């Protein structure tokens, strides 16, 4: 068994190294360094332009050739720019959404400039020059947003950990039987082992759909670590690992999960998922809490309010569940 696992590991490491060479990526992740640098540049640009618009709206109006009688709108645009800029820096390594907010802002700018073009009070030449500039920046924003969101598994990266009153041995054994995973991962419908180190996953997606993928184990160190990656043709491309570290003082095990995945539909899909209350970071953290419950008390603990889901959006009032709804929920969870 150990040698087979070893083989798998060596094979996948080779695969990984090959991929890294091809794409010029660091082995640690699937990040897109250039897009991030560009995002940062755009962030500073947003803040600079925003400050100029807020502090010196008349000068900005003059340069852009637009009517400078009403500076309130320019100041508002300035605040929007600053918010986008700050958003880029606050979103950390993957400011995809903040960049999308810039693209939306560019659209507004262009619309305003087009309107200014038809106004008698504006200087046509300067407006045309400003529009050309905005179009150039828009192109950069779109490029950056595209790079950040398209990049394979580089879409969303989540890291979570939890301390559980069980030994690394117990936890490894439980997790290693992948068919156990749906007992604590609410979004998983089923996991079926299809062969040595291979499994087929079905998960519930927002708005009642399902997504499917096949995965293979890429690293497997007994009582220590399990790593996996999705195979060609997956609905959700993903790479992940779980580590089991003995906690100090005999206080159980620290379980650390790292998942990197590209949500279907890229960044836009991820935004839609968030609107449905499906925040990946929160999901993984909830799943780990449920794992803790399964290990420490034997099953996932439910309340009347959380019997189906624990997203606030879908929570029902804590009253006992009527009989007919009850059977529905049981069939959904069994």
């Amino acid at each position, binding site marked *: 068994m150990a040698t087979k696992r070893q083989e798998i590991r060596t094979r996948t490491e080779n695969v990984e190294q090959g991929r890294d060479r091809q794409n010029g990526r660091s082995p640690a992740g699937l990040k897109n360094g250039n897009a991030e640098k560009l995002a940062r540049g755009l962030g500073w640009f947003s803040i600079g332009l925003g400050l100029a618009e807020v502090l010196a709206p008349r000068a900005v109006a003059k340069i852009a050739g637009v009517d400078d009688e009403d500076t309130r709108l320019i100041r508002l645009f300035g605040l929007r720019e600053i918010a986008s800029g700050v958003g880029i820096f606050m979103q950390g390594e993957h400011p995809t959404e903040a960049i999308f907010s810039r693209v939306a802002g560019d659209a507004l700018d262009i619309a305003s400039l087009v309107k200014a073009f038809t106004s008698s009070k504006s200087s046509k030449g300067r407006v045309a020059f400003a529009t050309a500039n905005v179009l150039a920046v828009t192109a950069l924003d779109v490029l950056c947003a595209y790079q950040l969101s398209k990049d394979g598994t580089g879409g969303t990266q989540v890291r979570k950990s939890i301390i559980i009153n069980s030994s690394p041995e117990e936890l490894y054994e439980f997790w290693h039987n992948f068919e156990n995973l749906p007992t604590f991962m609410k979004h998983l419908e089923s996991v079926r082992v299809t062969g040595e180190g291979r499994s087929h996953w079905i998960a519930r997606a927002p708005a009642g759909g399902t997504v499917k993928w096949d995965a293979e184990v890429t690293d497997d160190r007994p009582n220590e670590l399990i790593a996996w990656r999705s195979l060609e043709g997956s609905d959700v491309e993903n790479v992940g690992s779980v580590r089991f570290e003995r906690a100090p003082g005999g206080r159980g095990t620290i379980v650390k999960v790292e998942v990197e995945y590209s949500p279907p539909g890229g960044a836009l899909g991820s935004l839609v998922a968030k609107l449905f209350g499906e925040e990946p970071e929160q999901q993984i953290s909830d799943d780990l809490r449920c794992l803790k419950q399964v290990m*420490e008390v034997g099953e996932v*603990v439910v309340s009347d309010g*959380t019997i189906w889901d624990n997203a*606030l959006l879908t*929570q029902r009032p804590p*009253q006992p569940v009527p009989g007919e709804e009850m059977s529905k929920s049981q069939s959904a969870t069994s």
Partner: protein
Amino acid sequence: MRANCWYGKKDVRVEQVPDPKILNKRDAIVKISSTAICGSDLHLYNHFIPTMEKGDILGHEFMGEVVEVGPEVKDRKVGDRVVVSFPISCGNCFFCKQEMYSLCENSNPNAWMAEKMFGHSPCGIYGYSHLTGGYAGGQAEYARVPFADVGTLKVPDGMPDEQVLFLSDIFPTGYMGAEMCDIKQGDTIAIWGCGPVGQFSIRSAFMLGAERVIAIDYVPERLAMAEAGGAETINYEEQDTYETLMEMTGGRGPDACIDDVGMEAFGGHGIGYVYDRAKQALGAETDRPIALREAIMACRNGGTVSVIGVYGGFIDKFPMGSVMNRSLTIRTGQCHVQRYWGKLLERIERGDIDPGFVITHRMRLDDAPEGFDIFANKEDNCIKVVMKP
């Protein structure tokens, strides 16, 4: 079954709802014989706590008879007469194993909400918003009791409900408030708030060896009840609390102070929101946040301030300089009921105390809306309401 449901600010209604069922293997269903309205229910009633949904069943102080048990309930059986603890605790986690039951890591399925507000989540609580789990409460005919072996205390058949009901919350809560003072023989303890929990702190402080207890409030019947329990009293509407305490203790101050008041300021969405709500409460309920500041300022050097009154978010103008420069200890917590209720039941059996003394109103469950109204407004000399389904 009938249950008292929350519908909004100062709007509770007794309605017909489905009967509870076993949802987890360690659950029991209890047929409720007595249930009370807690001072902390008023935070919900006045809508100071976020994450309430219309239809939520209230109530976390209740007792009754076990009528059904899940397959993994070991030490309780149908027919047992039990009191239910307000903290829902698994008994297996890091905190439960240290008898810190109100910090149970497994009993709040909505822990993520509490984490956003507090950094970490406390345990689940019956009928106390979705932030603490979204569990149906006990102002009803029946209730589902998770982790029944940990969350119920068997009580002898001979003892009337009124003697043991308050083991569910207010007696252990008042007791823990006093216990956290680490009382030494001869100590003087000052207690802010003479509501039901304050009354139990007064009696517990004497049980634990205090020589003097000074109780502070403004409601005459509550001060009279405190005096009946052996406390000296300060009516802060008539006397300056700090000055009076200094005069009574020769300028040194009480050895420990208990805040049995808390602050009716809860809020949910980020620091700004919670801060504003706290400020609102400052305007609306002037005595409440002032209690903690006063307790800190009055406490003797090197003394202990025990905070058992409920706080929800952030407070304004906290006298940290006084705490630090004078070596004060601050101790706090939601009560770890299951740590205390066994030995407190023994005290009741021995006749040291009859907790029924706090009850001023006995009603039917159907009268819950009226009970909330008079309790919230301190009408009709109301101190504690107990209801029978």
